[in-house]
């Protein structure tokens, strides 16, 4: 019995040790750049610099699934969560894989703005942009029985009662808070921001009547809208969204096209990723983006806008979005 137990324990230990180490394994060996065509030689790692269950985690896991189902890469694709430091821990980890063609990382606006605001070491210019895959928008929504029937009514009430109309959101400096700031700035309102920890808690607060308004992604609130518990008053998207949100006016229609915060989901690689590897991943991600599975399982289910931008285009796009974010952060005082 004792012998059996010790064998069992040793097996468990060695397996778990291996599992923990495999992610650290051969990291720094870059593929021989003499070859023109790149093909992956070992497991692919998609780094998610946030915890499981969030937006970055979802895109990484759907991507891994589509790649596997379509057999686009003949190696295993692993999703590795490295949360902490508003993405900085994951960024640093990816940075440490200099020249490695087998590592990708999810990239989002809050993540890149966070590197500047928190004065982190690894920033956008240190990494290799690969692709942009989707755009997200924001809805301004109220409870179905709210006295605010339209965005105009909300603006009017907020002007008449400064600091009385409360808006729930996911945190100071997050995308929804930047949009909140732009609404106050351009409509001359004084709405009051209340921070919650997650989209779920924000929705609960709206349904419970603890806040008057929420600013959130369509995905977070869609179920409530379909059930008639919540109504959307405005959308930050450029064009109107699809059904059942086709009656919701955009800010351009509401007279303030400046109220716009771009929310994208993309991928980057480690610094000095070989050019042919960047080409390879651009190709894979483009195929994913065009696949039916991706459009259905990701874009439609999460109410997103499908886009595809390759490496060069994404580099400029990321930079532009970053500049907009930093300007907004200076205005609200989270960046000095």
């Amino acid at each position, binding site marked *: 019995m004792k012998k059996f137990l010790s064998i069992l324990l040793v097996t468990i230990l060695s397996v778990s040790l291996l599992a923990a180490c495999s992610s650290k394994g051969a990291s720094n060996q870059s593929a021989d750049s003499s070859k023109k065509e790149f093909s992956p030689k070992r497991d692919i790692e998609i780094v998610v610099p946030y915890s499981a269950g969030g937006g970055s985690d*979802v895109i990484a*896991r759907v991507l891994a699934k589509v790649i596997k189902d379509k057999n686009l890469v003949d190696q295993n694709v692993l999703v590795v969560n490295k949360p902490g430091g508003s993405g900085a821990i994951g960024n640093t980890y990816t940075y440490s894989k200099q020249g490695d063609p087998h590592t990708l990382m999810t990239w989002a606006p809050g993540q890149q703005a966070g590197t500047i605001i928190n004065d982190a070491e690894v920033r956008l210019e240190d990494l290799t942009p690969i692709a942009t895959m989707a755009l997200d928008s924001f809805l301004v929504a109220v409870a179905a029985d709210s006295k605010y029937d339209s965005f105009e009514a909300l603006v009017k009430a907020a002007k008449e009662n400064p600091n009385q109309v409360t808006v729930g959101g996911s945190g100071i400096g997050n995308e929804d808070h930047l949009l909140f700031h732009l609404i106050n700035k351009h409509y001359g309102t004084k709405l009051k921001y209340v921070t919650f920890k997650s989209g779920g808690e924000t929705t*609960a607060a709206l349904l419970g009547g603890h806040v008057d308004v929420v600013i959130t992604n369509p995905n977070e609130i869609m179920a409530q809208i379909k059930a008639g518990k919540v109504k959307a008053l405005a959308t930050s998207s450029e064009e109107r969204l699809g059904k059942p949100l086709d009656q919701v006016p955009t800010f351009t229609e509401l007279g303030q096209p400046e109220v716009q915060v771009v929310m994208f989901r993309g991928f980057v690689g480690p610094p000095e990723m070989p050019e042919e590897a960047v080409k390879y991943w651009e190709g894979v991600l483009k195929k994913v983006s065009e696949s039916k599975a991706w459009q259905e399982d990701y874009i439609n289910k999460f109410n997103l806008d499908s886009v595809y931008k390759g490496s060069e285009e994404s580099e400029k796009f990321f930079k532009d979005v970053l500049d907009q974010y930093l300007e907004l952060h200076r205005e609200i005082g989270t960046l000095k």
Partner: protein
Amino acid sequence: MEVFQFLFEGFTVALSFENVLAAIAGALLGIVVGGLPGLGSVTGVALLLPLTFQMDPTTGIIMLAGLYYGSMYGGSFSSILVNMPGESSAITTALDGYPLTKKGLAGKALFTSNMSSFIGGTIGIIILTFMGSFLAKIGLAFGPPEIAAVILLALCSIGWLFGENPRKGLITTFIGILIATIGVDITTGQPRFTFGSMNFLGGVSFIPLVIGMFGFSQIIEMMTQKLNKEKFNKKITLKESMLNKSEMKRIIAPSIRTGLLGSFVGILPGAGATTGSMFSYILEKRVGKNKGQMGKGAIEGVAAAESGNNSTAVGAFAPLLSLGIPGSGTTAVLLGGLIMWGLQPGPLMFQNNPDFVWGLISSMYIGNLISLLASLAIIPLLIHFIRIPNAILIPIITVLCVLGAYSARNNMFDVWLMLAAGVIAFLLISYHYPIAPLVLAFVLTPMLETAIRQSFSMSNGDPSIFVRGPITITLLSMIVLFVISPMIINVVKKKKRQEQDSDFLAS
């Protein structure tokens, strides 16, 4: 009754061959995931999620739900045996479970833990079946001011955990609060006490802290004290591990009490199984018959903690299924899974996908039973574990501590944090400073702070928001009563004594 009809239909779904298999697989995986420190239910569900995409959604969720509550069973094993919570919600289990092991009663502690997990889980499932959507709506009435009052009420009772020296307990409580203030301040978005380190931006991470404070400090103590395990060496038989009739009686009342409380906590926004088991332990420490022994190795303590965390885990499904709002970290991951399966968790799910919802609920009855049987079957194997000599056991636990701390966030920094927490906790324990209040304060005070500051931003700084409705008023009056009642009792007692004294003198 309509519910019975739905439940019956649900059972026909849940009892299909593949769904029973999924429930068994999920529960067994959960026990393993829960048993390994650092690998918690959130990670477990996230890892399993992509693998279930090939399955029918109902089968998939049955497996994931099985993993979730199976982990609540497994989490208690290492808590009891080596004082290292395998799952953060099993911290409170260690408070009494490990002392029981030291007394040579590991088998009884494990048995209690499994039985009360089952009782708590079953209560949670019954409540979910019959009152789920109703309670979820009540949960919505708990906004920031109400949550603040609930946590304050729990914190008022933290003093019960101070042990012999209240001053020392108070000091560790404040250390817990201090550590909890590290990280980004949620109301202003500014980093607080992070000393410029990216690793502290999200706060001191909980899992490495707990593994260090409980598990690693234990290792240091074993090494320095050269604790010999002679008394553990006597053979523990399965028969001795069974609870006798009077012991069963002792755990039933606490299990039911905390099962009800836990189900309710699960429904509250933002409160997970860890909070549920802490509230339950505090409640039992306050009202239980054997409260004096709690913390020193009372089966009631194990029962309260385990029944509490299982029922909270189940309770968290009520807002998820009937409103589409996740009540805890794990259910948030599940929500993502539901969307990927093409379901829309929300107010319409009971109408649009009754097969799915009722299949899941029915499967919980089955999965809970399977978890119980599997956990009971493991006990004989587990009690061998503590008979391993220290020279072998200590290195193994050390490796587990390191792995657990690393794997929670895949971050080496957390390993250093775990080691530091272990050393600090060892020093504190050596000087008889209790650790439990520190960990409790670390978990509960940030929730209190958040809720209070949210309330103030809702009301523009007007404190009257804390007495805005019947819920807060009731809770606050209970707090006042709790604080004042000991004083009044003291005064009354004193008076009585004086009267007696004067009577005595007069006679």
